[in-house]
């Protein structure tokens, strides 16, 4: 029992650590993008400032909204934070309260409430964002399931901490490299990054995640942004710990991952919405090959 409590305590501390560094990683991605576009760009700490700014501002609610609208950002933030306590990384031990499937479904809880809230403000933009979010998530899900399957076959468990790359065995294999590429593609789609979604614009033709959040302001908006920064760092941690077959410290992997996201976002345009099917199909095929090569 004591071991259990310690383990849960460590998980919570890890969640907080990731929460503290999450805006920094988002800031690094933006800085890399700015530099590659030959701009000076905002400070890497800009996201902290933004969150503080929104936190102080007033929340404007439309008269059509219900409790769901207020509940959704809170649930979304909480699911990201709980996901952050679950990823195998710095402090989590062998014991974890949920496995990889639960990790996926906890994030789905956040998505459920965010897409619901998008329909609550009674506007076209929100519904458009929610509808597209569902579309992308349907295509992402099989790839994520296969990504779990490959490590679960390799390490005979679906617990995230058991699925961490075992550096004592042969870890740099064809299947590991394929899985690494595929998971990177999935990560971009899951976190609403280019080429699937454009995190920088509010234009209705391009937006998915931003469309859903269009009606939010004040503290609720800052919770949503904090939640999505957290989701990026959580996925980067997962990517580093489970799928990057290189034996270097995890923190460096996360930083490298952030830089690569910045580079990829600079090199790519936003893809047409119905081309996403092909993009994620490619990720699924990579994973399929990886499992067969395993």
């Amino acid at each position, binding site marked *: 029992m004591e071991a259990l409590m310690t383990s849960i305590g460590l998980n*919570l501390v890890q969640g907080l650590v990731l929460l503290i560094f999450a805006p920094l990683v988002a800031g690094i991605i933006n800085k890399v993008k700015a530099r590659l576009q030959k701009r000076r760009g905002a400070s890497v700490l800009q996201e902290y400032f933004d969150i503080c700014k929104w936190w102080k501002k*007033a*929340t*404007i*609610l*439309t*008269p*059509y909204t*219900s*409790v*769901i609208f*207020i509940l959704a950002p*809170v649930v979304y933030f*909480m699911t990201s934070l*709980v996901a952050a306590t679950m990823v195998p990384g710095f402090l989590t031990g062998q014991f974890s*309260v*949920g*496995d990889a*499937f*639960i990790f996926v*479904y906890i994030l*789905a*809880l956040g998505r*459920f409430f965010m*897409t*619901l809230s998008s*329909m*609550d403000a*009674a*506007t*076209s933009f*929100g*519904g458009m964002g*929610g*509808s597209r979010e*569902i579309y992308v*998530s*349907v295509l992402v*899900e*099989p790839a994520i*399931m*296969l990504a*779990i*399957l490959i490590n*679960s*076959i390799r390490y*005979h468990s*679906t*617990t995230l901490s*058991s699925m961490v790359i075992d550096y004592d065995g042969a870890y740099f294999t064809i299947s590991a490299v394929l899985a690494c590429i595929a998971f990177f593609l999935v990560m971009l789609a899951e976190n609403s990054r280019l080429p699937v979604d454009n995190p920088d614009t509010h234009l209705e033709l391009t937006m998915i995640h931003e469309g859903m959040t*269009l*009606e939010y302001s*004040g*503290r609720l908006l800052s*919770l949503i942004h904090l939640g999505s920064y957290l989701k990026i760092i959580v996925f980067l941690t997962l990517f580093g710990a489970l799928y990057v077959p290189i034996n270097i410290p995890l923190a460096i992997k996360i930083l490298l991952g952030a830089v690569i996201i910045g580079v990829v976002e600079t090199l790519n345009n936003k893809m047409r919405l*119905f081309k996403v099917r092909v993009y994620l199909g490619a990720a*699924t095929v990579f994973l*399929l090959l990886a*499992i*067969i090569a395993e």
Partner: protein
Amino acid sequence: MDFLLISLLIYLLGTLTIVFPKRIELAAHYLGMLCAVLASGMVAYSSLNYLMNPVDGWLLEASWGSYSLQADAWSAAFLLLTGAAGAMTSIYAIDYGKSYKGNRIRLLSGLWNLFLLSIVAVLLSGDAFTFIVAWELMALVSFLLVNHEAGKKKTVSAAYQYMVMTHIGTAAIMVAFFLIGSSSGSFSFGDMANNELSGFMKNVAFICAFLGFALKSGLMPLHIWLPNAHPAAPSHVSALMSGVMLKVALYGFGRFAFQFIGMDIFWHGLIVMLVGLVSAFLGVLYATMEVDMKRILAYSSVENMGIIFAAFGCGMVMYSMNMTVVCVVAFTAALVHAFSHSLMKGLLFMSAGAVMHSVGSKNIELMGGLIKKMPYTALFTLIGSMALSSLPFTSGLVGEWLTLQSFATLAQQAGTPELRLLVIFAFIMLGLTGATALGCFVRLYGTAFLGRARTNIVDKAHEMPVFMLLGMGLEAVLIVAIGLMPDALVNMVQQVFAGIAAVSIGTPLGLIWGGSGRYALYSPGIIFAVFALIALFVFVAVYRSVSFAGKESTGSLVRRDVTWNCGTIPTSRQQYSATGFSKPLRRAFDGILSPRRSLTYLRKEHAYYGRKLKYELEIPDIFNDRLYKPIQQLMINSSSAFHKIQEGSVRLYIGYTMVAMIVVLIWGVLL
């Protein structure tokens, strides 16, 4: 044990309300529902008692002449499911049934009892004859219940379609019983277990049994009756049909698989698994395209029965490959998901009934903003929708997690690439199904309950009377209770499979499964505690700016203002519609859905202004178009071919008789 027999008598008493005089029809209705609640409660109690304190021997054993009743743990599990769901839907029906006052309400209440009686009788039957009689009774009574609103043309055609389909299924089941019974020399279930069927005939028996029970549980491509029958029936009847009757088919199939046919042949399980997986994905895909609330739920039943059968098939495959210990997790997954689906689909059909009762339509495109008019119904529907999207803290995820674990275990333990490809297919299908189900219920809930009213039918919406809320509320509480403390249900369900192998999945900590040596844990209680801890901090922070009641009293941090709409005041028609919401998915899977669109200009005086358009969208069921229509065409063609030799002239028929005589005579001479 006595409780079960008494409950059968109480159901019979409830059935007698049919013959009550018309002037006390409301009293008859109350009496009928009271009987149903009482008897279902007794069924649930005695089976729960049997499952909690497992003893050797039967829950019930009795016989009269050639009819016999007996119930083992497998029956007891389904009796519990029937009793629980039956009691809660009957409570709901106390108030819901009243809307049929003056519309043969006595018949409705009486048949309701008879329906429950026939379901319990199917589960209790101890020989093939009793089973078939009870099964037929169940089919006939449910046909009458579906046909209750016989004034509507659609209802009648749905009911007859159901009747025809279900009898094809019964015929297949009878063939299976006959094959097994004739090989074992007796039709009692105990003797039928020792049949000597092998080879080809065993396969035939399996196919017939699977055909019959898959049809009753609505697996694709035999599902076509289901999305028509459920919307036609009164809502509490749909709740019981979807929540319980479909599971009775699983009971029957399990009886065949465990007891009569065995699970030694690999491809038997493989077929069950593949049919289940395909049904799961296609079912939820069609559900996401529908706008009729009850049709959405009906297709979602196809999906969930698909998941249940996929898990069951996975167990059969494992068993046939001698993974006799780990296969228990798959069977447990199937049974747990059956329990949880009976609760959540019962709940959602009841809330669909509540919405219909309230606004008078099933079309979600006409609704919107119901959460403000009927807050409790909205809360229960939210819980049901979350469960059907298999989200954490609901019973939906328990079944889903066990299903995923069983497939993962199959992949971990099976070395061959073919099996791996199979599991890859299963994971892709389950992944697609899970995400689409989430989209489906977001769409349903978001369109009907959130946003603004789309038409004025919402104006008259109101909250439901107390018994309807009680029925829904009890199911919602059970869903969350199982979701937070799954170990009680899971451990109980495992008792059923103690004969195959003893494993322990449920612990006070949560669910633990380690089929391949290393353990995976799902501990909803602890995750919920972590959630609650974080929620405490976040709510304290957010509460200061956003009041939950929506009042603006808490300081200057909240303002209310109209939704931003590029500078114009938004109208309620500018909200995203349900059809629009599923458009990207419709496009992504248009190869399967093949939507038919048509756009007509009714009035077009100017190119861009004052136009009146008529847009029609139809998504035909792929199996209706590509399987049933050709079969129908074939039947019509062949009967018109026979038509040619049936001219109706007496001379011709005498000629036929003569030719037949001559052929027979020649035959006799030659042999």
